[in-house]
């Protein structure tokens, strides 16, 4: 025979989906939120996102170089981490904070464990939470959308997110304000203070819809996560609407949508079984609601996801699916 035949064991066809293609689509799905962030907070937001990408890629490549591993920055995972980290930062942060954040995200959150696939915690959230705990002042200095379109927002409110503002009011006055500073529509579109990427529910939902449609992320986690938070905050709101924000407000403010659709769904750090994903989502939702309602922090999505990341190996073990033809022992 003139030509050599290629040998391998079956199957001989594979789906076109690859890790880079998944990561690329996640980046694509984050674009609406990125645009709203830049549109609302101006060049500063663009600069933070760009700096985050550059420093994250640098740390990823440097770590792989030092460890003698192949440089794999083109797999796109570091880029996803970078964008998520930037979207989780207030638009006012100094540049060095971004660099520190990406250092912790990539080096401590990911490469130390062996890189993509081995990290137990969502790297972007590791970076963000390190910053939140270490630099609370810088991390809670909010700005309002500066675009003329949003000039109706009163300046007296500057310096707080909807959730932060409500919590402060609750602590100082013993109740949430009778009239809330933003209406639901403003929260939905993104005319509010907050992290670069979390302000517009609409932009996040567009991206999330794309990921769900392409089956890049499982629906179980975001749905159970959001539903649980909605349900618990709703119960408390019905008990005492003077002390607790209404659940729709909870839904569209803070990092709930960004966290539920883009970070709790990080495939490396959540369970692989359906039941595991359901419990994971419920756990995230529960912790988020508890922190928001009773915690010292106004927002709890990051902590909730990180804590649930830690339970992933256990959830996988406890929720092994029933094997076909297996007779249940119970």
């Amino acid at each position, binding site marked *: *025979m003139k*030509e*050599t*035949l*290629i*040998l*391998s*064991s*079956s*199957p*001989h*066809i*594979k*789906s076109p*989906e*690859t*890790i880079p*293609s*998944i990561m690329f689509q996640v980046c694509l799905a984050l674009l609406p939120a990125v645009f709203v962030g830049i549109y609302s907070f101006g060049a500063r937001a663009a600069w933070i996102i760009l700096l985050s990408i550059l420093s994250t890629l640098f740390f990823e490549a440097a770590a792989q170089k030092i460890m003698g591993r192949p440089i794999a920055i083109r*797999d796109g995972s570091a880029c996803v981490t970078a964008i998520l980290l930037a979207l989780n930062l207030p638009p006012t942060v100094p540049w060095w904070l971004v660099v520190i954040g990406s250092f912790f995200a990539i080096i401590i959150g990911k490469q130390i464990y*062996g*890189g*993509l*696939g*081995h990290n137990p915690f969502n790297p972007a959230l590791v970076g963000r939470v390190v910053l939140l705990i270490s630099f609370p002042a810088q991390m809670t200095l909010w700005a309002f959308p500066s675009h003329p379109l949003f000039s109706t927002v009163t300046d007296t409110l500057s310096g707080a997110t909807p959730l932060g503002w409500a919590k402060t009011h609750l602590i100082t006055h013993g109740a949430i304000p009778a009239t809330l500073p933003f209406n639901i529509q403003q929260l939905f579109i993104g005319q509010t203070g907050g992290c670069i990427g979390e302000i517009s529910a609409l932009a996040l939902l567009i991206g999330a819809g794309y990921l769900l449609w392409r089956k890049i992320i*499982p629906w179980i986690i975001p749905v159970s996560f959001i539903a649980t938070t909605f349900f618990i905050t709703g119960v408390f709101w019905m008990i005492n609407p003077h002390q607790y924000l209404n659940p729709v407000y909870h839904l569209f403010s803070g990092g709930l949508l960004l966290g539920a659709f883009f970070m709790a769904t990080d*495939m*490396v*750090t*959540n*369970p*692989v*079984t*359906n039941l595991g*994903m359901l419990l994971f989502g419920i756990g995230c939702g529960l912790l988020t609601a508890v922190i928001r309602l009773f915690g010292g922090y106004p927002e709890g999505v990051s902590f909730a996801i990180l804590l649930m990341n830690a339970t992933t190996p256990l959830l*996988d073990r406890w929720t*092994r*699916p*029933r*094997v*076909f*033809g*297996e*007779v249940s022992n119970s």
Partner: protein
Amino acid sequence: MILHHFPGGIHPHDEKELTAHLPIEDAPIPSRVFIPLSQHIGPPAEPIVKPGDPVRVGDKIAEARGFVSANIHASVTGTVRAIRPYPHASGRLAPAIEIESEGEDQVYVPTKDRQDPLSLPPQTLIPFIREAGIVGMGGATFPTHVKLSPPEDKSIHTLIINGVECEPYLTADHRLMLEHTRDIIEGIMYIRYILNASFSFVAIEINKPDAIRMMQNNISDPHIRVISLPKRYPQGAEKQLIKTILGQEVPSGGGLPMDVGAVVQNVGTTFAIYEAIRWGKPLIERITTVTGRGIKTPKNLRVRIGTPVRDIIALCGGWKEVPGKLILGGPMMGINQYDDAVPVTKGTSGVLLLPREEVGEYHPHTCVRCGRCVTVCPMGLLPNFLGVFSEHARFADAERLHLLDCIECGSCTYVCPAKRPLVQMIRYAKGEVLRRRKKVARQ
């Protein structure tokens, strides 16, 4: 009828448009055939001819060794030239009987004409099948007479005829159902009679609407129902098919279809059973789909067992593009060949030629725990963990996760975005576990 849902499954493009419309053609008699003694599950057959012996088409040339084994017959008239190791579909060299054919018109002349086999006692039909050397022609090659002889304590209520053909590219069963509809139905009657099964189903995937119509229009017996199934791989796997139709699961850990009162027979096998019982014809030829974008003229061929694949490729115009892979069977479970001298056997449902440009080269990444393999596994296993355990030689852990229940359909490897060879690692682990068990048993 309510269809039940088996877990998982994938939807690769079925690629059947290459050959689905092409009538079955008779391949010319090859100048030489190489008939392996092992074309079935169980010990190889024992040759009963020696070099120099003249044989006629249909003569028995090797005898089943033991109950779970199958007879082998001469597929051409000619002279036995050698019994020697020869390339085999399994990838190894295996003993085969080489026959030089006389090249003349060698139509098989029926030795029997049983007008009404259903007047004979059911059990007397099984020896006809056994004598003909029939094995499962969907690819599993389990001796059919064994499958049709369940132990006394197992009663079979349902016969399922498997015309699903869920492997992409393959259309051999499809064409057979279109062109030999009545013969297959006759075969169903025989099998049903042997098993005394009350219900019979002919399961066909929805992508073969003409075959579904053809079967429906020709079946008059109200106890035989044609079921059209949604397209999903591996719908044609025995356990998944039973689950879909009966809603029952073959027990994990070595259970058999008969444990839930069912027997599944492929349409090709059913046709062979018809020919054996009605005409006394042994299994000397089969329908195989020669396909893929690597072959110049794709065809559905009736070929003599033992025909070298090289002859078949030449008959179909040869490689169209730079050769990539030569596969016997479908792209999901077929076996890759390194030598085109390998002969067609009773289990060769297809000859698939993939051009070089369609053969990807993959560099496996660490598992990223996306869980896609868990979602698609039709057995409810955790292929990601099984793969990791296999890599780390943690076979006991893999066994605890039901390693041996894997049916090796390859869906996990197909979907893995990290391009990990999951089913390959699982196969390796299964081999290790079984080898160790044997070792323990010997001690």
